[in-house]
């Protein structure tokens, strides 16, 4: 008897698909309902940020860094300023470093909240989305109070930050921290042990440690694969070595692990902000730099732990006011490249969960 079956066929998902979080196109090769192979097609948000860098002064480029990853723009500001400071040998005042850490960690919580909201929305749970945006709004208010912006902050400068914290900031932020602690339990109560959620995430989209490293996957996705690696702890920059926090890791390397790692990271980020607010010193907020800023000739590669993983800035100076070359090493770019490894053998509905759990931000991929 003749063998019956279906032929393999191609399905196009995106670029305009509600669960691709921006504009990403996935070409799926399907065998019935099962994904045989997948090709991510990116570049829809390519804005030539590296080319623009070669045509702007160092200071003019800081607002552009906001646009690399607009969900966690503080990290992009921080990374670029740090790279230039290393190159020019500038010491950042202590208070400025504390402010940077506070802003980074608040931004990390805000970014994880967006991720959690959209992740649960992709899985069909609408309530967490509303909860998350309620809390994120409070963080946005805190940051707006400080730098006047809510998304693209343009807050950090080479040598420090652009302005000091306003008087009301510290009491307001402390209030938020106390308010936020039980909120994380609230999200967990809806999702963590929810049987539908477990069915959608447990054991789905496994990315083992070896493959993750091979694809340069970093950040929470790598930690969910079981490697205890966090630049804030293992290669401390700024003043991170002064704070007490833990590195959450996963054991099963699946979608659920990537979820729980980020949930715990929000708690840890909250702890860091709390400690930083208690111990922030008085003093200068910006090192003195010349009005026409020219770092000496040389090159530097600096990396920080952004929300999505290792964010690297490779800056080359030829001694003029304009960078000779800026390379942006973004975490999402490498994380997305590993998606086919995770998605093979799963169904499209699972792909939506896997893709969302990676926390890829498309402008971060395309730059």
């Amino acid at each position, binding site marked *: 008897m003749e063998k019956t079956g279906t032929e393999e066929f191609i399905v196009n998902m995106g670029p305009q698909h509600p669960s691709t979080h921006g504009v990403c196109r996935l070409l799926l090769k399907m065998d019935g309902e099962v994904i045989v192979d997948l090709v991510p097609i990116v*570049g829809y948000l390519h804005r030539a940020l590296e080319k623009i860098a070669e045509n702007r002064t160092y200071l003019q480029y800081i607002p552009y860094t906001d646009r690399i990853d607009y969900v966690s723009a503080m990290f992009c500001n921080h990374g670029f300023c740090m790279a230039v400071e290393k190159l020019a040998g500038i010491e950042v005042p202590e208070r400025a470093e504390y402010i940077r850490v506070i802003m980074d960690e608040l931004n990390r919580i805000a970014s994880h909240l967006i991720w959690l909201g959209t992740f649960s929305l992709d899985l069909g749970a609408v309530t967490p989305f509303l909860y998350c945006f309620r809390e994120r709004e409070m963080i946005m208010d805190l940051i707006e109070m400080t730098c006047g912006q809510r998304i693209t902050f343009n807050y950090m400068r080479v040598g420090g930050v652009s302005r000091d914290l306003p008087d009301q900031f510290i009491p307001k932020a402390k209030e938020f921290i106390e308010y936020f602690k039980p909120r994380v339990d609230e999200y967990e109560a809806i999702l963590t042990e929810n049987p539908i959620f477990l069915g959608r995430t447990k054991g789905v989209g496994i990315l083992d440690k070896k493959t993750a490293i091979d694809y340069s996957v970093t950040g929470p996705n790598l930690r969910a694969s079981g490697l205890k690696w966090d630049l804030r702890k293992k290669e401390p920059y700024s003043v991170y070595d002064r704070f007490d926090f833990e590195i959450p890791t996963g054991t099963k390397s699946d979608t659920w692990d990537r979820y729980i790692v980020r949930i715990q990271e929000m708690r840890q980020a909250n702890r860091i902000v709390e400690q930083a607010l208690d111990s922030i010193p008085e003093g200068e907020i910006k090192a003195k730099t010349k009005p026409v800023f020219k770092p000496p000739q040389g*090159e530097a*590669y600096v990396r920080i732990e952004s929300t999505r993983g290792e964010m690297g800035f490779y800056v*080359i100076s030829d001694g003029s006011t304009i960078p*000779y070359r800026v390379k942006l090493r973004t975490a999402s770019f490498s994380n997305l490249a590993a998606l086919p490894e995770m998605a093979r053998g799963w169904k499209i509905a699972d792909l939506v969960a896997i893709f969302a759990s990676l926390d890829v931000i498309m402008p971060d991929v*395309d730059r």
Partner: protein
Amino acid sequence: MIKENIVKIVQNKFPEKIEEVPFVGVDVAFKVDKDLILKVCQFAKETPELSFDLLACMTCIDYVDHMEVVYNLFSFTHRHKIAIKTSLLRDGELDSVTPAWNAANWHEREIAELFGITFKNHPDPRPILLPEDWDEGFPMRKDWEGKDFVRLPKK
């Protein structure tokens, strides 16, 4: 301790082909011959004393008379980081390092379309970031001219 030895270990394997260069933010940086790049990368990954398992960053710089490709490597085991550089002619060819790290795949595709370098034995040499019908050359080159592109004067 091992950090000073990295260059020595590589030099023992590839004598007279290694030249140290200044670089801020890494333990050590050196330049290798372009024909050796894949061998050096595989050596750096597989030697137990080096074990550079993470290709942290890979990029290209246009120096107008030549191109330079830079590999930033990191080892989770020993926690040391290096940069390997190699220089080649414009429109030059370079061995793909995808046999060592899969992460190089997308990075090389990006460099190939933006700078015009060909990577030999690349498993998937399609463009990645630019539009499908792009025919205006290699935009990251220093002498690239685009119709809306105005260069800022250097000071």
